[in-house]
C-alpha cells in the first residue's frame, strides 16, 4: 500500500497511542452454541425502555418481536432464540444495576419464515428511503459501537437538516477489539451495501469508510470492493486513540468539527459503526432483525481467544467457556474495550446489542497504582482530544466547584480516558470528570425545569 503515515488523515487535537494488543485479528468469526436460557434486557438502547409484548409461558420463534419501541427514541427487541418465556423480571446488566428482562428457555432453533437465512449477497434494493428507515426501525437496530443510539433516529434528520455524507466507523481504535476488523474482512461487501442503503435512506451523496492503518488487509479489500459502488471512498487513517470517537472521526475524514453541544448532522455527517452497517444490510436485504452480534473475547492468558458470533441474551460466562475458561490470574473482567469498557462484577450478565467484547485482564494490569500529587506536567492537556484541562477539572470537582466546571466546558468531555491513561502520577482524572459531568448535567436539568 502506498499511503505513507504522513499522508494519512487523522484528527488534529490530542490523542494517545496505546499499544494495540490485537491478539485476535487473524481469528475468523466463529459462531457459538446456543445458550440454555437467553436473558433479553429491555433497555439495550438509549431512550425509553421497550415494552414487553410476551409474558410467562408464551412460545417465541427466533426473530419474533418480543418488546416494542416505546416512542421515537427507543428500539424494538426481538427473540434471539426460540423457546418458551419463563419469566419477565430484572437482572443485573453490565453496569451492575438491575434492569427488566425477558428470560427465554431455549427449545430448538426455529426461525420466522420471513427471514432470509442464506448467505447470498443481495446488492440491489428498490425500496423508498422512508421504507428503508422503517425496516431499520422494525429490526431494532441501534449503534453497535457501544452507545446504542437507535439507528433509525440517526437516519431521520430533523427538518431542514440534510446529510452530505455517511461515515462508516471501522476505526476500532480500542486496543484488543477486532470484531469490526473481522467483519470487514468476512462481510466487506455486505457492509458496503449497507452503507449504500444508508446513503439512499438519507439521500446523502457521499459515503466514507474510515479504517485505521493497523488493518491494512481490510483497507485493501474494501478499496477493491468499493470501486464497484459509486460515491463510496475508503479512507485510511493514522493510528491514534480515540479516532473512533464520532467527533474525532468526522474531523479526521471531512475536516469539519462538530460544534460544542451540537450533533454530527449539524455539519452534515452521520456516523455508523461497521457492525451497525452490517446489521442495516441484514435488516433491509434479509429482513433479519438484530438478534446476534460479534464479540471479541480476549486477554493474554486465554487459551482460545477469538471473535465469536453470539445470540443476544447469552450469558457472558458462556462466551468465557467458549474461549477456554477464565484464566487463573484474571483480576478484572471488562465488557468492551480496555479504554472505555465497563468492569464486570460477575459473568452472569447477558450479552446485549452494545457489547463489543469481553476482556480478561491479569492482575498486574488490573490494579491501579496509588494516586500521587499532580506535578503539573500537562500530559493530560496534551492528550485530551477535546482540548480541555482534565487536571483542573479534577481539582474543581474535588472542591465541588460545579459552576466553574460548567464554565470550563466540562460537558465537552467525551470520557475517552486519554487523561487518566497518560497521567504519570496515576491520578483518577476521569473518575472525577464523570462526577463533575453528572452533577453539572443534573444542575442543568433542574435549572431548565425551574
Amino acid at each position: 500500500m502506498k499511503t505513507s503515515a504522513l499522508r494519512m488523515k487523522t484528527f488534529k487535537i490530542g490523542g494517545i497511542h496505546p499499544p494495540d494488543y490485537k491478539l485476535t485479528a487473524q481469528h475468523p468469526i466463529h459462531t457459538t452454541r446456543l445458550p440454555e436460557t437467553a436473558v433479553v434486557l429491555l433497555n439495550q438502547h438509549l431512550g425509553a425502555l421497550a415494552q414487553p409484548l410476551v409474558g410467562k409461558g408464551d412460545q417465541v420463534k427466533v426473530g419474533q418481536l418480543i418488546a416494542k419501541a416505546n416512542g421515537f427514541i427507543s428500539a424494538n427487541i426481538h427473540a434471539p432464540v426460540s423457546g418458551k418465556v419463563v419469566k419477565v423480571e430484572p437482572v443485573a446488566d453490565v453496569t451492575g444495576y438491575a434492569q427488566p428482562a425477558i428470560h427465554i428457555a431455549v427449545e430448538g432453533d426455529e426461525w420466522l419464515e420471513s427471514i432470509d437465512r442464506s448467505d447470498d449477497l443481495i446488492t440491489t434494493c428498490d425500496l423508498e428511503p422512508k421504507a428503508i428507515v422503517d425496516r431499520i426501525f422494525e429490526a431494532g437496530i441501534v449503534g453497535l459501537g457501544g452507545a446504542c443510539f437507535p439507528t433509525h433516529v440517526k437516519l431521520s434528520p430533523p427538518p431542514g437538516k440534510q446529510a452530505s455524507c455517511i461515515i462508516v466507523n471501522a476505526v476500532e481504535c480500542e486496543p484488543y477489539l477486532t470484531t469490526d476488523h473481522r467483519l470487514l474482512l468476512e462481510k466487506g461487501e455486505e457492509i458496503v451495501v449497507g452503507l449504500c442503503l444508508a446513503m439512499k435512506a438519507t439521500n446523502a451523496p457521499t459515503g466514507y469508510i474510515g479504517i485505521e492503518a493497523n488493518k491494512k488487509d481490510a483497507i485493501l479489500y474494501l478499496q477493491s470492493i468499493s470501486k464497484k459502488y459509486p460515491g463510496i471512498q475508503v479512507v485510511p487513517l493514522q493510528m491514534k486513540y480515540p479516532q473512533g470517537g464520532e467527533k474525532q472521526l468526522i474531523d479526521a475524514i471531512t475536516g469539519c468539527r462538530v460544534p460544542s453541544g451540537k450533533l454530527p448532522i449539524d455539519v452534515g455527517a452521520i456516523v455508523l459503526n461497521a457492525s451497525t452497517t452490517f446489521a442495516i444490510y441484514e435488516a433491509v436485504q434479509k429482513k433479519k432483525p438484530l438478534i446476534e452480534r460479534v464479540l471479541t473475547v480476549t486477554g493474554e492468558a486465554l487459551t482460545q481467544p477469538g471473535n465469536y458470533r453470539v445470540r443476544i441474551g447469552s450469558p457472558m460466562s458462556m462466551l468465557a467457556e467458549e474461549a477456554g475458561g477464565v484464566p487463573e490470574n484474571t483480576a478484572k473482567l471488562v465488557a468492551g474495550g480496555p479504554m472505555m469498557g465497563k468492569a464486570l462484577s460477575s459473568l452472569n450478565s447477558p450479552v446485549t446489542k452494545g457489547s463489543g467484547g469481553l476482556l480478561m485482564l491479569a492482575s498486574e494490569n488490573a490494579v491501579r497504582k496509588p494516586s500521587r500529587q499532580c506535578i503539573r506536567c500537562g500530559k493530560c492537556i496534551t492528550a485530551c482530544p477535546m482540548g480541555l484541562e482534565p487536571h483542573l477539572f479534577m481539582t474543581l470537582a474535588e472542591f465541588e466547584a460545579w459552576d466553574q466546571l460548567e464554565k470550563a466546558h466540562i460537558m465537552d468531555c467525551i470520557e475517552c480516558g486519554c487523561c487518566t491513561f497518560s497521567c504519570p502520577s496515576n491520578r483518577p482524572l476521569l473518575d472525577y470528570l464523570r462526577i463533575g459531568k453528572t452533577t453539572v448535567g443534573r444542575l442543568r436539568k433542574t435549572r431548565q425545569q425551574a
Partner: protein
Amino acid sequence: MKQTPIVAMSPHLHSGDSVEKKMYRVLLALLPAFGVSLFVFGWGTLITTLVAVTACVLFEYLIQRFVLKLPTTVTDGSAALTGLLLAFNLPSNLPIWIIVIGALFAIGLVKQTFGGLGNNPFNPAIAARVFLLVSFPAQMTTWPQPMQRSYLDALTGATPLEALKYHGHDLPNLNDLLLGTTGGSLGEIGALALLLGGAYLLLRKVITWHVPVSILGTVFLFTFLLGWLNPTSYHAVVSTNAVTNGLTFAVFHLLSGGLLLGALFMATDYVTSPMTTKGQLIYGVGIGAITVIIRIFGSYPEGVSFAILIMNALTPLINHYVKPTRFSPGRS
C-alpha cells in the same frame, strides 16, 4: 479466577509513565554535563555535587518524616534532581556549609513549605541559587579557572560572560564554549554535553521543544539584533561585516553562562512552567527577553536564574489566561 473481579471505572489501561521515570530520565540526561564538569574542575565537582544531592535527599526525608509526619516521597527522584541542579548552579569550590544552606533553602523553604512536589511555585534549585547569590555574593561569584582540578587553592578567573560584559579581553573561543573548557558554575559549561542531554529528553518525550526553543530563539534574535546594530558597545566587533558581528555576539550568548542549562533543564521543570503549549511559548519568550535585558543592560553579567524565577511567578497567571485550543467552541 482466584478472587472476585476488581470493579473500577474505565480506562483499564495505563501508559506506565510515572514521576520516577521522568525524574530519573532527567538525572540521566544531566550525566554528560556532569562528566565534562568532572574533567574540567576535578574534585570540586565531585564534592559539591555529592554534598548538594545528599543534603537535598536528607532534608526531604527528615522534613517529611519528622516535621510534616507524612509518608516520604524521597524515592521519586525529585529531591536528588533538585540537589544535582543546585550543584550545577554553584561554583565548584563553594564551601560545603554554604551548599548545605542552599539545600535546606531549596527543599525546606521553596518545596516542602508549599506542599512538596507539584505545589512549589518556584523552581527550588534556582530559588536556592539566587538566595545564595544575594546572601554570599563573594563566594558565589568566585569561579575557579578551568582545567586546574584543585579544590581548595584554585586560582580564580572570570566567566565568559563577565569577560564579555566588563572588558572584552581573553574571550574563550567557540571550541572552549562547546567543550566546556571555560570558567563558570559547575554544570553550565560544556554546551555540547548539555545539548546531548536535552536531545535525549526531547527524544524520550520528557520535555517538548516549546520552552527551550522559545527561550533560545528569543535570546538569539535579541542579541543578534543588538550585536548587528551596535557592535562597538558590546565588545562584539570581530569584523567589518555587521551581520557577522551580530551572529558572533548571538552565538556567544547562546553558548555561554547558564542559558543552555536553564533552557533545557531548569525552565522545563513541569511544576513551575505553564501547562499548555501556547503558555509555554509565552513563558519561554519571557525568559529569553528578561535574560538578555539583565545580561546586557543590568548590572549582573548573567540573568537566566532571575528570568526563570520571574516567569515562574507569572506561570499561574499564564495558566489562568492561556487555555488549550478547544476542539470546537460554541454552546456547551
